[in-house]
Protein backbone atom coordinates (compact mmCIF):
# COMPACT_ATOMS: atom_id res chain seq x y z
CA UNK A 1 0.00 0.00 0.00
CA UNK A 2 2.82 2.38 0.99
CA UNK A 3 4.59 1.42 -2.18
CA UNK A 4 1.53 2.18 -4.30
CA UNK A 5 1.09 5.52 -2.59
CA UNK A 6 4.67 6.62 -3.10
CA UNK A 7 4.44 5.36 -6.67
CA UNK A 8 1.37 7.50 -7.22
CA UNK A 9 3.05 10.53 -5.61
CA UNK A 10 6.07 10.04 -7.83
CA UNK A 11 3.92 10.00 -10.92
CA UNK A 12 2.08 13.12 -9.77
CA UNK A 13 5.43 14.86 -9.38
CA UNK A 14 6.64 13.74 -12.77
CA UNK A 15 3.39 15.12 -14.14
CA UNK A 16 4.05 18.47 -12.50
CA UNK A 17 7.56 18.82 -13.84
CA UNK A 18 6.26 18.47 -17.38
CA UNK A 19 3.80 21.31 -16.90
CA UNK A 20 6.03 23.83 -18.70
CA UNK A 21 5.56 22.36 -22.15
CA UNK A 22 2.06 21.09 -21.61
CA UNK A 23 -1.10 22.85 -22.81
CA UNK A 24 -4.58 22.16 -21.50
CA UNK A 25 -7.62 23.00 -23.61
CA UNK A 26 -11.24 22.49 -22.58
CA UNK A 27 -14.62 23.50 -23.96
CA UNK A 28 -17.00 23.08 -26.87
CA UNK A 29 -17.54 19.55 -28.13
CA UNK A 30 -18.04 20.92 -31.66
CA UNK A 31 -14.60 22.48 -31.67
CA UNK A 32 -12.83 19.68 -29.79
CA UNK A 33 -12.40 17.16 -32.67
CA UNK A 34 -10.82 19.74 -35.00
CA UNK A 35 -8.60 21.20 -32.26
CA UNK A 36 -7.54 17.67 -31.33
CA UNK A 37 -6.30 17.14 -34.89
CA UNK A 38 -4.53 20.52 -34.86
CA UNK A 39 -2.95 19.57 -31.52
CA UNK A 40 -1.57 16.34 -32.93
CA UNK A 41 0.11 18.21 -35.78
CA UNK A 42 1.38 20.86 -33.34
CA UNK A 43 2.94 18.11 -31.21
CA UNK A 44 4.61 16.53 -34.23
CA UNK A 45 6.29 19.80 -35.29
CA UNK A 46 7.17 20.74 -31.69
CA UNK A 47 8.68 17.61 -30.13
CA UNK A 48 8.36 17.45 -26.34
CA UNK A 49 5.22 19.57 -26.24
CA UNK A 50 1.98 17.97 -25.13
CA UNK A 51 -1.46 19.37 -25.85
CA UNK A 52 -4.38 17.80 -23.97
CA UNK A 53 -7.86 18.53 -25.34
CA UNK A 54 -10.94 18.01 -23.15
CA UNK A 55 -14.61 18.64 -23.87
CA UNK A 56 -17.56 19.72 -21.76
CA UNK A 57 -19.25 22.50 -23.72
CA UNK A 58 -18.57 26.14 -24.54
CA UNK A 59 -19.49 27.29 -21.04
CA UNK A 60 -16.82 25.03 -19.57
CA UNK A 61 -14.34 26.58 -21.99
CA UNK A 62 -15.21 30.05 -20.67
CA UNK A 63 -15.14 29.02 -17.01
CA UNK A 64 -11.94 26.97 -17.20
CA UNK A 65 -9.96 29.62 -19.06
CA UNK A 66 -11.07 32.14 -16.43
CA UNK A 67 -10.04 29.99 -13.46
CA UNK A 68 -6.83 28.85 -15.11
CA UNK A 69 -7.89 25.18 -15.20
CA UNK A 70 -7.32 25.45 -18.93
CA UNK A 71 -4.65 27.45 -20.75
CA UNK A 72 -7.04 27.92 -23.65
CA UNK A 73 -10.82 27.52 -23.79
CA UNK A 74 -12.83 26.41 -26.84
CA UNK A 75 -16.08 28.26 -27.53
CA UNK A 76 -18.31 27.57 -30.55
CA UNK A 77 -19.98 31.00 -30.56
CA UNK A 78 -19.06 34.65 -30.34
CA UNK A 79 -18.18 35.80 -26.82
CA UNK A 80 -21.00 37.50 -24.91
CA UNK A 81 -20.73 41.06 -23.57
CA UNK A 82 -20.18 39.78 -19.99
CA UNK A 83 -17.24 37.70 -21.20
CA UNK A 84 -15.14 40.67 -22.29
CA UNK A 85 -12.39 39.69 -19.82
CA UNK A 86 -11.46 36.97 -22.32
CA UNK A 87 -9.89 37.34 -25.74
CA UNK A 88 -11.35 35.35 -28.63
CA UNK A 89 -9.11 33.97 -31.37
CA UNK A 90 -11.25 32.71 -34.24
CA UNK A 91 -9.81 29.62 -35.94
CA UNK A 92 -12.76 28.65 -38.13
CA UNK A 93 -16.36 29.42 -39.03
CA UNK A 94 -19.33 27.13 -39.18
CA UNK A 95 -22.39 28.16 -41.16
CA UNK A 96 -25.83 26.74 -41.79
CA UNK A 97 -27.34 26.76 -45.26
CA UNK A 98 -30.88 25.96 -46.35
CA UNK A 99 -30.78 23.10 -48.86
CA UNK A 100 -33.40 21.74 -51.25
CA UNK A 101 -33.38 18.87 -53.75
CA UNK A 102 -31.21 19.44 -56.84
CA UNK A 103 -34.22 19.28 -59.18
CA UNK A 104 -36.16 21.98 -57.29
CA UNK A 105 -36.48 25.09 -59.50
CA UNK A 106 -36.74 27.48 -56.51
CA UNK A 107 -33.76 29.85 -56.65
CA UNK A 108 -34.27 31.78 -53.42
CA UNK A 109 -36.54 31.92 -50.38
CA UNK A 110 -37.07 34.98 -48.20
CA UNK A 111 -36.68 34.64 -44.42
CA UNK A 112 -40.45 35.05 -44.00
CA UNK A 113 -41.06 32.22 -46.47
CA UNK A 114 -38.60 29.93 -44.68
CA UNK A 115 -40.28 30.63 -41.34
CA UNK A 116 -43.74 30.01 -42.88
CA UNK A 117 -42.55 26.69 -44.32
CA UNK A 118 -40.99 25.56 -41.03
CA UNK A 119 -44.04 26.40 -38.89
CA UNK A 120 -46.36 24.68 -41.38
CA UNK A 121 -48.15 27.73 -42.86
CA UNK A 122 -46.83 27.00 -46.34
CA UNK A 123 -47.06 23.34 -47.30
CA UNK A 124 -46.70 23.37 -51.09
CA UNK A 125 -43.85 24.59 -53.27
CA UNK A 126 -46.38 26.30 -55.63
CA UNK A 127 -47.11 28.84 -52.86
CA UNK A 128 -43.54 30.18 -53.13
CA UNK A 129 -43.34 30.06 -56.92
CA UNK A 130 -42.28 26.46 -57.45
CA UNK A 131 -44.02 23.48 -58.98
CA UNK A 132 -47.06 21.82 -57.41
CA UNK A 133 -45.39 19.51 -54.90
CA UNK A 134 -45.84 18.98 -51.17
CA UNK A 135 -43.05 20.31 -49.01
CA UNK A 136 -41.25 17.85 -46.73
CA UNK A 137 -39.77 19.77 -43.78
CA UNK A 138 -36.57 18.25 -42.42
CA UNK A 139 -35.56 19.44 -38.95
CA UNK A 140 -32.61 18.66 -36.69
CA UNK A 141 -32.84 16.65 -33.50
CA UNK A 142 -32.79 18.38 -30.13
CA UNK A 143 -29.38 19.36 -28.82
CA UNK A 144 -27.72 19.82 -32.22
CA UNK A 145 -25.73 23.02 -32.53
CA UNK A 146 -27.02 23.64 -36.06
CA UNK A 147 -30.57 23.49 -34.71
CA UNK A 148 -29.78 26.16 -32.12
CA UNK A 149 -28.14 28.36 -34.71
CA UNK A 150 -31.12 27.97 -37.05
CA UNK A 151 -33.67 28.67 -34.32
CA UNK A 152 -31.76 31.69 -33.03
CA UNK A 153 -31.42 33.20 -36.51
CA UNK A 154 -35.13 32.90 -37.31
CA UNK A 155 -36.26 33.63 -33.71
CA UNK A 156 -38.16 30.34 -33.63
CA UNK A 157 -38.80 27.85 -30.84
CA UNK A 158 -38.30 24.18 -31.60
CA UNK A 159 -41.87 23.46 -30.44
CA UNK A 160 -43.25 25.73 -33.20
CA UNK A 161 -41.66 23.71 -35.98
CA UNK A 162 -43.84 21.20 -37.82
CA UNK A 163 -41.36 18.77 -39.30
CA UNK A 164 -42.02 15.65 -41.38
CA UNK A 165 -38.54 14.29 -40.67
CA UNK A 166 -36.17 14.82 -37.74
CA UNK A 167 -32.58 13.92 -38.44
CA UNK A 168 -29.29 13.79 -36.54
CA UNK A 169 -26.11 14.81 -38.28
CA UNK A 170 -25.28 16.63 -41.49
CA UNK A 171 -24.72 13.50 -43.55
CA UNK A 172 -28.15 12.19 -42.68
CA UNK A 173 -29.74 15.56 -43.48
CA UNK A 174 -28.11 15.65 -46.88
CA UNK A 175 -29.20 12.08 -47.67
CA UNK A 176 -32.79 12.82 -46.63
CA UNK A 177 -33.04 15.92 -48.82
CA UNK A 178 -31.24 14.42 -51.85
CA UNK A 179 -33.60 11.43 -51.75
CA UNK A 180 -36.81 13.47 -51.67
CA UNK A 181 -37.64 16.04 -54.43
CA UNK A 182 -40.01 17.97 -52.12
CA UNK A 183 -37.66 18.23 -49.14
CA UNK A 184 -36.17 21.30 -47.48
CA UNK A 185 -33.53 21.11 -44.77
CA UNK A 186 -30.58 22.92 -43.31
CA UNK A 187 -27.06 21.61 -42.80
CA UNK A 188 -23.53 22.77 -42.19
CA UNK A 189 -22.33 24.61 -45.32
CA UNK A 190 -19.01 22.80 -45.55
CA UNK A 191 -20.62 19.38 -45.54
CA UNK A 192 -23.28 20.47 -48.09
CA UNK A 193 -20.73 22.01 -50.46
CA UNK A 194 -18.58 18.89 -50.26
CA UNK A 195 -21.55 16.61 -51.01
CA UNK A 196 -22.63 18.82 -53.92
CA UNK A 197 -19.12 18.68 -55.36
CA UNK A 198 -19.20 14.86 -55.39
CA UNK A 199 -22.50 14.87 -57.26
CA UNK A 200 -25.17 14.57 -54.56
CA UNK A 201 -28.44 16.08 -55.79
CA UNK A 202 -28.85 19.06 -53.47
CA UNK A 203 -28.98 22.83 -53.95
CA UNK A 204 -27.73 25.40 -51.44
CA UNK A 205 -30.08 28.39 -51.32
CA UNK A 206 -28.72 31.91 -50.83
CA UNK A 207 -29.72 33.78 -47.66
CA UNK A 208 -30.81 37.43 -48.02
CA UNK A 209 -29.15 37.45 -51.44
CA UNK A 210 -25.83 36.11 -50.16
CA UNK A 211 -24.73 32.88 -51.82
CA UNK A 212 -24.01 30.01 -49.43
CA UNK A 213 -20.41 28.96 -49.91
CA UNK A 214 -17.00 28.84 -48.25
CA UNK A 215 -16.05 32.38 -49.39
CA UNK A 216 -19.10 34.26 -48.07
CA UNK A 217 -18.83 32.23 -44.88
CA UNK A 218 -15.13 32.94 -44.45
CA UNK A 219 -15.45 36.68 -44.98
CA UNK A 220 -18.44 36.91 -42.65
CA UNK A 221 -21.05 37.96 -45.25
CA UNK A 222 -23.18 34.87 -44.90
CA UNK A 223 -25.80 35.62 -42.21
CA UNK A 224 -26.30 32.27 -40.45
CA UNK A 225 -22.87 31.51 -39.09
CA UNK A 226 -20.89 31.29 -35.92
CA UNK A 227 -17.19 31.57 -35.17
CA UNK A 228 -15.29 28.67 -33.63
CA UNK A 229 -13.07 30.38 -31.09
CA UNK A 230 -10.11 29.70 -28.90
CA UNK A 231 -10.41 31.98 -25.88
CA UNK A 232 -7.73 33.07 -23.42
CA UNK A 233 -7.51 35.21 -20.30
CA UNK A 234 -3.76 35.68 -20.57
CA UNK A 235 -1.30 34.37 -23.10
CA UNK A 236 1.75 32.28 -22.24
CA UNK A 237 4.37 32.00 -24.99
CA UNK A 238 3.31 28.41 -25.64
CA UNK A 239 -0.42 29.13 -25.91
CA UNK A 240 0.39 32.11 -28.14
CA UNK A 241 2.40 29.76 -30.36
CA UNK A 242 -0.44 27.23 -30.44
CA UNK A 243 -3.11 29.82 -31.31
CA UNK A 244 -0.96 31.23 -34.13
CA UNK A 245 -0.46 27.70 -35.41
CA UNK A 246 -4.21 26.99 -35.24
CA UNK A 247 -4.91 30.15 -37.29
CA UNK A 248 -2.17 29.49 -39.84
CA UNK A 249 -2.62 27.97 -43.32
CA UNK A 250 -0.64 24.95 -42.08
CA UNK A 251 -3.79 23.52 -40.53
CA UNK A 252 -6.38 24.67 -43.11
CA UNK A 253 -6.66 21.12 -44.48
CA UNK A 254 -7.46 19.79 -41.01
CA UNK A 255 -10.20 22.38 -40.51
CA UNK A 256 -11.71 21.62 -43.93
CA UNK A 257 -11.56 17.89 -43.18
CA UNK A 258 -13.93 18.54 -40.25
CA UNK A 259 -16.32 20.43 -42.60
CA UNK A 260 -15.51 23.88 -41.22
CA UNK A 261 -14.17 26.95 -42.98
CA UNK A 262 -10.76 28.23 -41.95
CA UNK A 263 -11.04 31.81 -40.68
CA UNK A 264 -9.74 34.50 -43.01
CA UNK A 265 -6.83 36.35 -41.50
Amino acid at each position, binding site marked *: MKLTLSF*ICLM*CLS*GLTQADNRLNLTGSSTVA*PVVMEIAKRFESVNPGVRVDV*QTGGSTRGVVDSRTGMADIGMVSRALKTNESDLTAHTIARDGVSIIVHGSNDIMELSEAEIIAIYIGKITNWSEVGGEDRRITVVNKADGRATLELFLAHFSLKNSQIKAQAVIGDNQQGIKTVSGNPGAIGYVSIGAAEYEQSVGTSIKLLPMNGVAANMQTLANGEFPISRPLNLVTKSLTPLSQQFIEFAQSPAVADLIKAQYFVPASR
Partner: protein
Amino acid sequence: MAEHLFQFVIWCVALLVLMVLLWLVYGLLDHGLAKLSFEFLLSEPQNAGRDGGIISILVATLLILAVTLLAALPLGLASAVWLAEFTATHHFWARKVRLALDVMAGVPSIVFGLFGYAFFGIFMGMGFSVLSGGLTLACMILPVFIRTCEIGLRGVNNSWRQGAAALGMPKIKAVWYILLPAAMPAISAGLILGIGRATAETAALMFTSGYVDRMPESVMDSGRALSVHIYDLSMNVTGGDAAAQASALLLLMIIIVLNMLAYAVTDLWLGRRLSNDLA
Protein backbone atom coordinates in the same frame (compact mmCIF):
# COMPACT_ATOMS: atom_id res chain seq x y z
CA MET B 1 -55.96 -24.75 -20.24
CA ALA B 2 -55.07 -21.78 -18.10
CA GLU B 3 -51.85 -23.57 -17.21
CA HIS B 4 -50.87 -23.89 -20.89
CA LEU B 5 -51.75 -20.28 -21.61
CA PHE B 6 -49.61 -19.16 -18.69
CA GLN B 7 -46.66 -21.23 -19.89
CA PHE B 8 -47.06 -19.85 -23.41
CA VAL B 9 -47.02 -16.25 -22.15
CA ILE B 10 -43.96 -16.88 -19.98
CA TRP B 11 -42.10 -18.37 -22.96
CA CYS B 12 -43.06 -15.47 -25.18
CA VAL B 13 -41.81 -12.93 -22.64
CA ALA B 14 -38.50 -14.77 -22.26
CA LEU B 15 -38.12 -14.93 -26.04
CA LEU B 16 -38.89 -11.22 -26.32
CA VAL B 17 -36.05 -10.40 -23.94
CA LEU B 18 -33.71 -12.59 -25.97
CA MET B 19 -34.90 -10.93 -29.19
CA VAL B 20 -33.93 -7.49 -27.89
CA LEU B 21 -30.38 -8.69 -27.26
CA LEU B 22 -30.18 -10.51 -30.62
CA TRP B 23 -31.51 -7.46 -32.46
CA LEU B 24 -28.89 -5.28 -30.80
CA VAL B 25 -26.10 -7.71 -31.64
CA TYR B 26 -27.37 -8.10 -35.20
CA GLY B 27 -27.50 -4.33 -35.71
CA LEU B 28 -23.95 -3.89 -34.47
CA LEU B 29 -22.66 -6.82 -36.55
CA ASP B 30 -24.44 -5.52 -39.63
CA HIS B 31 -23.01 -2.00 -39.36
CA GLY B 32 -19.75 -2.54 -37.55
CA LEU B 33 -18.26 -5.83 -38.68
CA ALA B 34 -17.04 -4.52 -42.04
CA LYS B 35 -14.83 -1.94 -40.34
CA LEU B 36 -13.59 -4.19 -37.55
CA SER B 37 -10.19 -5.69 -38.36
CA PHE B 38 -6.83 -6.32 -36.73
CA GLU B 39 -5.57 -3.15 -38.36
CA PHE B 40 -8.45 -1.23 -36.77
CA LEU B 41 -7.63 -2.77 -33.39
CA LEU B 42 -3.91 -2.10 -33.57
CA SER B 43 -3.58 1.41 -35.01
CA GLU B 44 -4.06 4.85 -33.48
CA PRO B 45 -7.14 6.94 -34.31
CA GLN B 46 -6.76 9.55 -37.05
CA ASN B 47 -8.92 12.31 -38.50
CA ALA B 48 -10.98 12.67 -35.30
CA GLY B 49 -11.50 8.90 -35.11
CA ARG B 50 -12.98 8.43 -38.59
CA ASP B 51 -9.82 6.78 -39.88
CA GLY B 52 -7.17 4.70 -38.23
CA GLY B 53 -8.00 2.48 -35.29
CA ILE B 54 -8.54 2.47 -31.58
CA ILE B 55 -5.50 0.90 -29.91
CA SER B 56 -4.85 3.88 -27.63
CA ILE B 57 -8.51 3.98 -26.65
CA LEU B 58 -8.52 0.27 -25.93
CA VAL B 59 -5.44 0.60 -23.70
CA ALA B 60 -6.95 3.58 -21.86
CA THR B 61 -10.22 1.67 -21.30
CA LEU B 62 -8.42 -1.34 -19.82
CA LEU B 63 -6.18 0.88 -17.67
CA ILE B 64 -9.20 2.71 -16.26
CA LEU B 65 -10.88 -0.61 -15.55
CA ALA B 66 -7.74 -1.94 -13.83
CA VAL B 67 -7.58 1.11 -11.56
CA THR B 68 -11.28 0.73 -10.80
CA LEU B 69 -10.99 -2.92 -9.82
CA LEU B 70 -7.77 -2.44 -7.82
CA ALA B 71 -9.53 0.22 -5.76
CA ALA B 72 -12.99 -1.29 -5.54
CA LEU B 73 -12.18 -4.96 -4.83
CA PRO B 74 -10.35 -4.64 -1.49
CA LEU B 75 -12.53 -1.76 -0.27
CA GLY B 76 -15.70 -3.52 -1.31
CA LEU B 77 -14.85 -6.91 0.15
CA ALA B 78 -13.69 -5.39 3.44
CA SER B 79 -16.84 -3.27 3.79
CA ALA B 80 -19.06 -6.25 2.97
CA VAL B 81 -17.27 -8.39 5.58
CA TRP B 82 -17.65 -5.66 8.16
CA LEU B 83 -21.36 -5.29 7.40
CA ALA B 84 -22.11 -9.01 7.32
CA GLU B 85 -19.75 -10.51 9.91
CA PHE B 86 -18.60 -7.86 12.36
CA THR B 87 -21.79 -5.93 13.07
CA ALA B 88 -25.26 -6.98 14.11
CA THR B 89 -27.92 -6.52 11.41
CA HIS B 90 -29.57 -3.68 13.31
CA HIS B 91 -26.37 -2.06 14.51
CA PHE B 92 -26.78 1.73 14.37
CA TRP B 93 -23.76 2.47 12.16
CA ALA B 94 -24.32 -0.54 9.94
CA ARG B 95 -27.81 0.73 9.20
CA LYS B 96 -26.46 4.18 8.38
CA VAL B 97 -23.79 2.73 6.08
CA ARG B 98 -26.36 0.55 4.31
CA LEU B 99 -28.65 3.53 3.78
CA ALA B 100 -25.74 5.57 2.41
CA LEU B 101 -24.82 2.76 0.03
CA ASP B 102 -28.37 2.35 -1.24
CA VAL B 103 -28.66 6.08 -1.87
CA MET B 104 -25.30 6.08 -3.64
CA ALA B 105 -26.37 3.17 -5.85
CA GLY B 106 -29.20 5.30 -7.22
CA VAL B 107 -27.16 8.41 -7.93
CA PRO B 108 -26.91 9.19 -11.67
CA SER B 109 -23.45 8.66 -13.11
CA ILE B 110 -23.07 12.28 -14.23
CA VAL B 111 -23.16 13.24 -10.54
CA PHE B 112 -20.26 10.86 -9.89
CA GLY B 113 -18.53 12.48 -12.85
CA LEU B 114 -18.89 15.94 -11.38
CA PHE B 115 -17.85 14.67 -7.94
CA GLY B 116 -14.78 12.94 -9.43
CA TYR B 117 -13.88 16.09 -11.38
CA ALA B 118 -14.10 18.25 -8.26
CA PHE B 119 -12.58 15.79 -5.74
CA PHE B 120 -10.01 13.66 -7.58
CA GLY B 121 -9.37 16.08 -10.43
CA ILE B 122 -9.13 19.42 -8.67
CA PHE B 123 -8.92 18.82 -4.87
CA MET B 124 -6.52 15.84 -5.06
CA GLY B 125 -4.71 17.41 -8.00
CA MET B 126 -4.97 14.45 -10.35
CA GLY B 127 -6.39 16.55 -13.18
CA PHE B 128 -7.78 14.71 -16.18
CA SER B 129 -6.20 11.29 -15.75
CA VAL B 130 -6.80 7.59 -15.99
CA LEU B 131 -6.30 7.44 -12.21
CA SER B 132 -8.98 10.07 -11.57
CA GLY B 133 -11.39 8.28 -13.94
CA GLY B 134 -10.72 4.84 -12.45
CA LEU B 135 -11.23 6.04 -8.88
CA THR B 136 -14.46 7.81 -9.85
CA LEU B 137 -15.75 4.60 -11.39
CA ALA B 138 -14.69 2.71 -8.26
CA CYS B 139 -16.89 5.04 -6.18
CA MET B 140 -19.69 4.41 -8.63
CA ILE B 141 -19.59 0.62 -8.59
CA LEU B 142 -18.82 0.20 -4.87
CA PRO B 143 -22.40 0.45 -3.53
CA VAL B 144 -23.81 -2.35 -5.67
CA PHE B 145 -20.67 -4.46 -5.23
CA ILE B 146 -20.68 -4.12 -1.42
CA ARG B 147 -24.39 -4.85 -1.10
CA THR B 148 -24.20 -7.91 -3.37
CA CYS B 149 -21.22 -9.30 -1.43
CA GLU B 150 -22.91 -8.60 1.88
CA ILE B 151 -26.04 -10.45 0.84
CA GLY B 152 -23.86 -13.30 -0.40
CA LEU B 153 -22.04 -13.52 2.94
CA ARG B 154 -25.31 -13.40 4.88
CA GLY B 155 -26.58 -16.25 2.74
CA VAL B 156 -23.84 -18.58 4.00
CA ASN B 157 -25.38 -21.14 6.35
CA ASN B 158 -24.76 -20.32 10.03
CA SER B 159 -23.55 -23.85 10.75
CA TRP B 160 -20.37 -23.02 8.80
CA ARG B 161 -19.61 -20.16 11.18
CA GLN B 162 -20.38 -22.34 14.19
CA GLY B 163 -18.20 -25.14 12.80
CA ALA B 164 -15.29 -22.76 12.37
CA ALA B 165 -15.78 -21.38 15.88
CA ALA B 166 -15.99 -24.88 17.33
CA LEU B 167 -12.63 -25.71 15.77
CA GLY B 168 -11.18 -22.61 17.40
CA MET B 169 -10.61 -20.77 14.15
CA PRO B 170 -10.05 -17.03 14.63
CA LYS B 171 -12.88 -15.06 13.05
CA ILE B 172 -10.58 -13.44 10.50
CA LYS B 173 -9.45 -16.88 9.29
CA ALA B 174 -12.99 -18.14 9.12
CA VAL B 175 -13.85 -15.17 6.91
CA TRP B 176 -10.85 -15.66 4.64
CA TYR B 177 -10.89 -19.43 4.29
CA ILE B 178 -14.56 -20.30 4.58
CA LEU B 179 -17.06 -17.47 4.34
CA LEU B 180 -15.60 -15.51 1.41
CA PRO B 181 -15.11 -18.66 -0.70
CA ALA B 182 -18.62 -19.78 0.16
CA ALA B 183 -20.03 -16.42 -0.91
CA MET B 184 -18.13 -16.64 -4.18
CA PRO B 185 -21.13 -16.75 -6.56
CA ALA B 186 -22.49 -13.52 -5.11
CA ILE B 187 -19.06 -11.86 -5.21
CA SER B 188 -18.54 -12.73 -8.86
CA ALA B 189 -22.07 -11.54 -9.66
CA GLY B 190 -21.30 -8.21 -7.95
CA LEU B 191 -18.02 -7.98 -9.80
CA ILE B 192 -19.65 -8.62 -13.15
CA LEU B 193 -22.33 -5.99 -12.53
CA GLY B 194 -19.57 -3.57 -11.59
CA ILE B 195 -17.40 -4.34 -14.61
CA GLY B 196 -20.39 -4.00 -16.91
CA ARG B 197 -21.35 -0.64 -15.46
CA ALA B 198 -17.76 0.63 -15.46
CA THR B 199 -16.99 -0.40 -19.04
CA ALA B 200 -20.18 1.12 -20.38
CA GLU B 201 -19.83 4.40 -18.50
CA THR B 202 -19.59 7.63 -20.47
CA ALA B 203 -20.86 10.52 -18.39
CA ALA B 204 -18.66 9.92 -15.35
CA LEU B 205 -15.54 9.65 -17.51
CA MET B 206 -16.03 12.70 -19.72
CA PHE B 207 -14.84 15.02 -16.90
CA THR B 208 -12.40 12.67 -15.16
CA SER B 209 -10.35 10.52 -17.51
CA GLY B 210 -11.10 12.90 -20.34
CA TYR B 211 -11.08 13.12 -24.08
CA VAL B 212 -7.43 12.84 -25.17
CA ASP B 213 -7.08 9.97 -27.66
CA ARG B 214 -3.30 9.65 -27.39
CA MET B 215 -1.77 6.45 -25.99
CA PRO B 216 -1.62 6.97 -22.19
CA GLU B 217 1.95 6.70 -20.90
CA SER B 218 1.03 6.45 -17.23
CA VAL B 219 -2.10 6.50 -15.09
CA MET B 220 -1.56 10.25 -14.68
CA ASP B 221 -2.25 10.81 -18.39
CA SER B 222 -5.67 11.62 -19.72
CA GLY B 223 -7.10 8.75 -21.75
CA ARG B 224 -10.28 8.37 -23.75
CA ALA B 225 -12.49 5.43 -22.81
CA LEU B 226 -14.19 3.37 -25.51
CA SER B 227 -17.65 4.58 -24.50
CA VAL B 228 -16.56 8.23 -24.67
CA HIS B 229 -15.05 7.53 -28.10
CA ILE B 230 -18.32 6.02 -29.36
CA TYR B 231 -20.30 8.95 -28.00
CA ASP B 232 -18.00 11.49 -29.65
CA LEU B 233 -17.97 9.71 -33.01
CA SER B 234 -21.73 9.43 -33.20
CA MET B 235 -22.61 12.85 -31.80
CA ASN B 236 -19.82 15.24 -32.84
CA VAL B 237 -17.94 13.84 -35.80
CA THR B 238 -19.59 14.07 -39.21
CA GLY B 239 -19.12 10.75 -40.98
CA GLY B 240 -17.89 8.98 -37.84
CA ASP B 241 -20.75 6.48 -37.72
CA ALA B 242 -18.91 3.51 -39.25
CA ALA B 243 -16.07 3.77 -36.73
CA ALA B 244 -18.62 4.28 -33.94
CA GLN B 245 -20.47 1.07 -34.86
CA ALA B 246 -17.24 -0.92 -35.04
CA SER B 247 -16.13 0.46 -31.66
CA ALA B 248 -19.51 -0.37 -30.14
CA LEU B 249 -19.27 -3.92 -31.43
CA LEU B 250 -15.85 -4.19 -29.86
CA LEU B 251 -17.13 -2.80 -26.56
CA LEU B 252 -19.84 -5.45 -26.51
CA MET B 253 -17.26 -8.17 -27.16
CA ILE B 254 -14.99 -6.82 -24.41
CA ILE B 255 -17.85 -6.88 -21.90
CA ILE B 256 -18.65 -10.50 -22.81
CA VAL B 257 -14.99 -11.56 -22.50
CA LEU B 258 -14.51 -9.67 -19.21
CA ASN B 259 -17.60 -11.30 -17.75
CA MET B 260 -16.32 -14.74 -18.67
CA LEU B 261 -12.91 -13.88 -17.22
CA ALA B 262 -14.45 -12.61 -13.99
CA TYR B 263 -16.32 -15.90 -13.56
CA ALA B 264 -13.18 -17.92 -14.27
CA VAL B 265 -10.94 -15.89 -11.96
CA THR B 266 -13.27 -15.88 -8.97
CA ASP B 267 -13.81 -19.58 -9.56
CA LEU B 268 -10.08 -20.19 -9.49
CA TRP B 269 -9.25 -17.86 -6.63
CA LEU B 270 -12.03 -18.63 -4.18
CA GLY B 271 -13.63 -21.86 -5.36
CA ARG B 272 -10.50 -23.96 -5.45
CA ARG B 273 -9.32 -22.84 -2.04
CA LEU B 274 -12.58 -23.89 -0.52
CA SER B 275 -12.55 -27.32 -2.12
CA ASN B 276 -8.86 -27.94 -1.30
CA ASP B 277 -9.02 -26.78 2.27
CA LEU B 278 -12.22 -28.55 3.13
CA ALA B 279 -11.54 -31.73 1.21
